[in-house]
């Protein structure tokens, strides 16, 4: 990535800026942390491509307060242990603004370190409510919460008048959180929950689960988790001729589920952030992505772009690179971004964010259903 010499120059530059001796040659480092490898690396690709584009465009427009933004990329493999290592590396490298992490279970432990060390973090993808429940000052997100996504999914399922619904999750923070929200919404609506149970993330054989679903005679199955497991469940369910309709959160909505499930992915229901790349106002940006040969349609591309933009605008508004002052500016401001108008509450959550239900197709495309 960067040569030691360049790192040294940056370090000197940063220390000069910190001392207040002068800001002319300084760069502002933005740490981008997400999975470059591992089972959910395709989401990481979305995140890195969105953030890189924002940095490039902001620099082309003259940077932030006359300084260039520099993206420093870290791989957390969507593994909580690795995320902590990454967070410590950021501290050592003197990074003061972070776009990341992606998986809620990584963001949670990493944000403890950022908060302690005075680093501002904007996660473009982590939807677990617990992340912003701790009263942290420096934690923000450009995505909604499971507590918003769950009810959208639950209400949609309830509107289909199902007889019996099974709710399955992968026992992880993200999956179980969202599955619980869906179950509670369904219960409130008087829908019968035939089963609510966890599976082990990483396991491959779901034949017993599928037989159990068949016996329970459910017509809808909600799965809280990521695509590697749901893909296998779909495929094995199709082979065992289970004719229930499956639904999942945005963690299952990417083209890799088609690789795993094949034809069985047809008709899967997914809650996703709205397709920001379809918005009229973003067409110029979409073309910029396409010119680079990148796909802006992933759910986290433009949220990552927005995360970088918010950090940049926060710095300009605060007229300071002090993360606490930038956080203050973000809480008090209103920002026009590719994902719409962003306003923050005290916790660091966006005041409004909507999820949309899509029907997934076996060729990897999707159509909105509500």
């Amino acid at each position, binding site marked *: 990535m960067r040569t030691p010499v360049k790192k040294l120059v940056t370090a000197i530059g940063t220390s000069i800026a910190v001392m207040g001796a002068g800001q002319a040659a300084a760069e502002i480092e933005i740490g981008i942390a997400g999975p470059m490898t591992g089972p959910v690396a395709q989401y990481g690709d979305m995140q890195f491509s969105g953030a890189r584009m924002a940095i490039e465009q902001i620099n082309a427009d003259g940077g932030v307060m006359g300084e260039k933004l520099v993206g420093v990329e870290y791989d957390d493999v969507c593994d909580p242990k690795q995320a902590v290592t990454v967070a410590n590396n950021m501290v050592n490298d003197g990074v003061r603004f972070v776009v990341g992490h992606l998986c809620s279970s990584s963001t949670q432990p990493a944000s403890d370190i950022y908060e302690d060390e005075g680093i501002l973090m904007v996660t473009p993808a982590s939807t677990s409510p617990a992340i912003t429940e701790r009263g942290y000052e420096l934690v923000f997100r450009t995505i909604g919460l499971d507590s918003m996504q769950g009810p959208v999914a639950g209400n949609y399922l309830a509107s289909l008048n199902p007889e019996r619904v099974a709710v399955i999750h992968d*026992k992880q923070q993200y999956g179980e959180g969202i599955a619980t929200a869906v179950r509670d919404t369904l219960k409130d609506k008087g829908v019968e929950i035939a089963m609510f149970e*966890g599976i082990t993330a990483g396991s*491959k054989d*779901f*034949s017993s689960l599928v*037989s159990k679903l068949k016996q329970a005679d459910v017509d809808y199955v909600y799965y809280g988790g990521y695509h590697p497991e749901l893909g296998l469940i779909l495929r094995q369910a199709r082979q065992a001729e289970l004719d229930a309709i499956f639904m999942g959160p945005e963690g299952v909505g990417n083209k890799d589920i088609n690789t795993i499930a*094949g034809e069985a992915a047809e008709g899967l229901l997914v809650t996703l952030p709205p397709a920001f790349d379809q918005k009229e106002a973003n067409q110029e940006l979409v073309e910029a992505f396409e010119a680079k040969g990148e796909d802006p349609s992933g759910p986290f591309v433009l949220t990552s772009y927005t995360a970088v933009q918010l950090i940049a605008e926060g710095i300009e508004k605060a007229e300071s690179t002090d993360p606490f002052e930038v956080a203050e500016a973000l809480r008090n401001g209103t920002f026009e971004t590719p994902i719409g108008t962003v306003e923050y509450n005290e916790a660091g959550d966006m005041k409004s964010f909507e999820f949309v239900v899509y029907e997934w197709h076996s060729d990897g495309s999707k159509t909105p259903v509500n």
Partner: protein
Amino acid sequence: MSEASLYFIQQLVNGLTIGSTYALIAIGYTMVYGIIGMINFAHGEIYMIGAYTALIAITGLATLGVSWLPLILIVALVCAVIVSSAMGWAVERAAYRPVRGRHRLIPLISAIGMSIFLQNYVHLAQGSRNIGFPLMIQGGFDFGGDDTFRGSISYMQMTIFVTTLICMTALSLFISRSRIGRACRAVSQDLGMANLLGIDTNRIIAATFVIGAALAAVAGLLLGMYYGSIDPLFGFIAGLKAFTAAVLGGIGSIPGAMLGGLILGVSESMTSGYISGAYKDVVSFGLLILILLFKPTGLLGKPEVEKI
């Protein structure tokens, strides 16, 4: 038949299917342990490499325009067996033979290192994402039930049973009848003595690794097709389960590995069928601890004097 008993049979079928593949992989652990008393932790990776090789062969044939299913399966099987066997042989030659006879922890660490090496090698060579296996054997037949619940066995499950049965029978015949099989038994009883009596023990040990790897490759192809997708970590959990099966049945004993695999598979499917999938591993490993408490050598293991 009542629905409850159909459901029970269905879960039994699911458990036996997965259990028979555990047994196939477990053979590799148990044979190596029986002969040189070490645990080959890289065995799960050999199985994963078998699955990858099979997938590469299938994709290759598809690009060549071959569409006759039996031919594709046979070629994939042969390729997987050859590559995995070569890998098993190479691993033994490179990582275990040089340290054989030293303190018993040294080959163990060498095996763990080999496992990490192979996993990362495949990560780099093939990428870390899931790769899909094409759906090749579809459909199944119903063995009873009505509209509310139908018990069914898929043709894929039957393929797994039949293939495993053939492999196990062939292995048993090979061990009991062939010259190398006899030598294997001799070496497992007393390596030093077998050596004195003119058996090339290095060759027999290498053969053990090759046989174990070949069976793991068969399991790799079968499970790749059954699950429908593979990734470089595919071997790790399967290896762990198979190792558990080997210990459960009595490590060092071939019938023990078969029995252990089936028990583990059935206990997993029954747990997720009647309690909850979340407790699957809790129950299987709890069972292992219980059996080892009352029978430390495993179900069919012989008490041994000095071998770890």
